[in-house]
């Protein structure tokens, strides 16, 4: 090395000089980086023009106090600018990618991802979007795409320090320099060789990135993992299926070790209660999805909301919605943390809208059921919830195999059956929003039934990277949707805006408006109280992502990613035949007055 350097001094000097020059140029225009500190993340709502967390804040309300765009003037909302993104290409079993992400905005700089995990930094100043850099993680398409059950998806980034923190479908956690777009470090967190992929956005708590995993259709044993962002080392990893000797393991009663491939994925970003240092995370379905006789017992902690100590990952409480689930009714949905005045002081609730068609309020201090109600129009799998426990009334803790309403429940003696809701829900990953002034909670609803064919599973059928579903759905019945508002003070439905197609994008709430989209292309603004439609714009592409809002240069904008991907157009399109004409796409829309 030294010899070479001595022999070619001029070349070495020239290269060093070039590096120095580049560094100087890069340093000149960049102001001191806007460090995202744990304190700022705790107080994200005190920066009303910014959107710092995936779900806006640790409580996951997706409520912005910005009100320059309001019900009096929203009819004048128009496209301010758009930007074409990439990531449409296919891989594995997928013909194309889609957009499911929520843009993050900090001080006028927007960070979005495409389905393959490329991160785009866009300067939104001056009423236009300028792409500053794109970080392409070169995701291994075939490796990851072959075990992604439900599309080429990435739901966005998080910010910490001077880094953009993101995931890739092939299981990596990546830290990118916010100014330069250069990868600073990356760490393999999930293993696609085991059927594990990552689609969710990271949640940053203190100095940790919390990662969830997908793969319950491929025989994984789910987990939530915390990575120390300063040392890049794993702090804890808590499996969502308890191991031998751990509480809950007795809820897997078979002799064939079904728990080892029991599912329980965690692919939707959770929430965090700083007052008790508690993470609250939704846990996915058990596997095999539709053959519950393979896995007798309640199958903890699948289909549950799980509370964990943020520093240790230790489980504090759980609330299970559908024990021994034979329907693929996962509970991965976000828990929205709200405080409601009660007779004995504020009720501290965690709200969750489940794939099984019921909305739940749980006391987030104790994990006890407070109220629950169906938010879909048609439920056939149960006659309702027990008023005390919130369990389905047919649930029998003494039975190893739950049958609920046996006439419609998939089982080894009922090999083909129609159920409502269908296995997409109810409510899937698209996030809810909560208006703390009106105490209304808005659910993006999939009104569905579908037909389930059961396949009886045996241990020999369990193979790495192959489906482990115990059957599959088909779609003989049309699927529609709605935005349904629930009055959290009463636990009753307060209104419904019905839509011809399922809601596959999620909801944004502002003081007097609700924004949402349709897979047929429309972005819509509703009156927050009456849910009357006040504005609509057709983007011409399928909306499969949540709207968000931010302000820059003193002006409010609404942004949404557009590009139908996900599970729908591969597995569920027969229920919405008109959507077959929607073209793959990858586009950012930004609206203003």
């Amino acid at each position: 090395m030294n010899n070479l350097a001595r022999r070619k001094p001029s070349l070495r000097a020239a290269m060093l000089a070039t590096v120095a020059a580049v560094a100087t140029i890069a340093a000149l225009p960049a102001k001191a980086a806007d460090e995202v500190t744990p304190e700022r993340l705790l107080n994200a709502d005190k920066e009303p023009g910014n959107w710092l967390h995936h779900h806006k804040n640790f409580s996951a309300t997706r409520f912005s106090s910005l009100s320059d765009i309001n019900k009096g003037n929203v009819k004048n909302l128009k496209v301010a600018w758009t930007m074409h993104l990439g990531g449409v290409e296919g891989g594995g079993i997928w013909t194309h990618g889609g957009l499911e992400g929520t843009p993050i905005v900090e001080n006028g700089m927007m960070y979005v991802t495409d389905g393959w995990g490329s991160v785009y930094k866009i300067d939104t100043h001056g009423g236009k979007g300028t792409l500053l850099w794109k970080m392409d993680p070169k995701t291994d398409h075939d490796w990851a795409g072959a075990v992604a059950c439900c599309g080429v998806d990435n739901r966005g980034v998080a910010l910490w320090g001077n880094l953009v923190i993101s995931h890739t479908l092939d299981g990596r956690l990546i830290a990118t320099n916010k100014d330069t777009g250069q990868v600073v470090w990356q760490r393999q967190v999930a293993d696609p060789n085991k059927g594990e992929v990552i689609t969710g956005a990271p949640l940053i708590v203190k100095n940790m990135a919390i990662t969830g995993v997908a793969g319950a259709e491929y025989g994984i044993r789910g987990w939530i993992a915390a990575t120390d962002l300063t040392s890049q080392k794993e702090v804890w990893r808590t499996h969502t299926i308890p191991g031998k000797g751990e509480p809950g393991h007795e809820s897997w009663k078979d002799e064939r070790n079904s728990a080892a491939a029991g599912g329980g994925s965690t692919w939707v970003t959770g929430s965090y209660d700083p007052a008790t240092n508690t993470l609250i995370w939704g846990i996915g379905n058990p596997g095999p999805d539709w053959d519950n006789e393979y896995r007798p017992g309640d199958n903890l902690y699948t289909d549950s909301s799980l509370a964990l100590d943020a520093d240790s990952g230790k489980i504090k409480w759980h609330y299970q919605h559908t024990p021994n689930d034979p329907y693929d009714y996962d509970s991965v949905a976000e828990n929205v943390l709200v405080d409601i005045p009660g007779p004995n002081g504020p009720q501290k609730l965690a709200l969750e809208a489940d794939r099984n068609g019921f909305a739940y309020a749980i006391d987030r201090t104790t994990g006890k059921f407070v109220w629950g109600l169906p938010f879909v129009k048609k439920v056939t799998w149960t006659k309702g919830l027990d008023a005390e426990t919130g369990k389905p009334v047919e649930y029998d803790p003494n039975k190893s195999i739950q049958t609920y309403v046996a006439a419609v429940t998939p089982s080894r003696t009922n090999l083909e059956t129609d159920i409502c809701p269908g296995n997409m829900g109810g409510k899937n990953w698209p996030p809810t929003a909560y208006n703390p002034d009106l105490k209304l909670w808005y659910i993006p609803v999939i009104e569905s039934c579908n037909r389930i064919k059961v396949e009886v599973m045996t241990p020999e059928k369990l193979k790495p990277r192959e489906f482990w579903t115990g059957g599959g759905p088909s779609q003989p019945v049309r699927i529609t949707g709605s935005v349904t508002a629930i009055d959290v003070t009463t636990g009753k439905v307060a209104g419904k805006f019905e839509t011809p197609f399922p809601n596959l994008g999620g909801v944004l709430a502002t003081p007097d408006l609700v924004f949402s989209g349709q897979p047929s292309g429309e972005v819509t603004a509703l009156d927050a109280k009456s849910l009357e439609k006040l504005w609509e714009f057709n983007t011409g592409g399928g909306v499969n992502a949540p709207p968000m809002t931010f302000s820059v240069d003193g002006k409010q904008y609404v942004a949404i990613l557009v590009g139908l991907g996900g599970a729908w157009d591969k597995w569920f399109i027969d229920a919405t035949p008109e959507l077959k004409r929607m073209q793959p796409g990858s586009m950012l829309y930004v609206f203003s007055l």
Partner: protein
Amino acid sequence: MTRHNRLPRGAILAFVIAATAAMTAGAAAQSADPTDAGKAVFKRANCVGCHKWHGNGGGGYGGHALSLRKTELSREQIIETIGCGRPGTGMPFFTRGAYDSVKCYDMNREDVGSRIPPEANTFLRPSDVEAAADYVIAHVKGKGEPNNSECVEFFGNASRVCDIYKAEQPTATQTTHSGQSK
């Protein structure tokens, strides 16, 4: 001068062309598989979307795609299935005009009624359908469990998609040509 030089240059060129052609032909003869065109159709027409790269299909979110490894269909039957799909299932038809100008299973659109299979995203010409069928016969039908060399042959080496097969040593059962399974 010019004239003197032109002749040998022409000769050299002719030699280079001939040599290159010979080398290309030689290389092609060594590596080309007559069913490569069919493999390309298998990928392009998204057969992998349900049957997977290995053809085993399997259950899943989209229902159950049949195993092409365990299929008992003949070449002619595979060709008809690709062109006409499978009535009453999700297996689409890949021939333009199937059930209209082209009869399928001796049925037209009226005969098949509501059991008409979905229309594929890509239509294939008869030669493409035959190529895909020949690929399935040569590389998929009658094979046992998928292995590393098959996987690498399909994907190349750029992806980690074949990693899970690497640990497995090729065993007698994996290399045996099971031929026609019953």
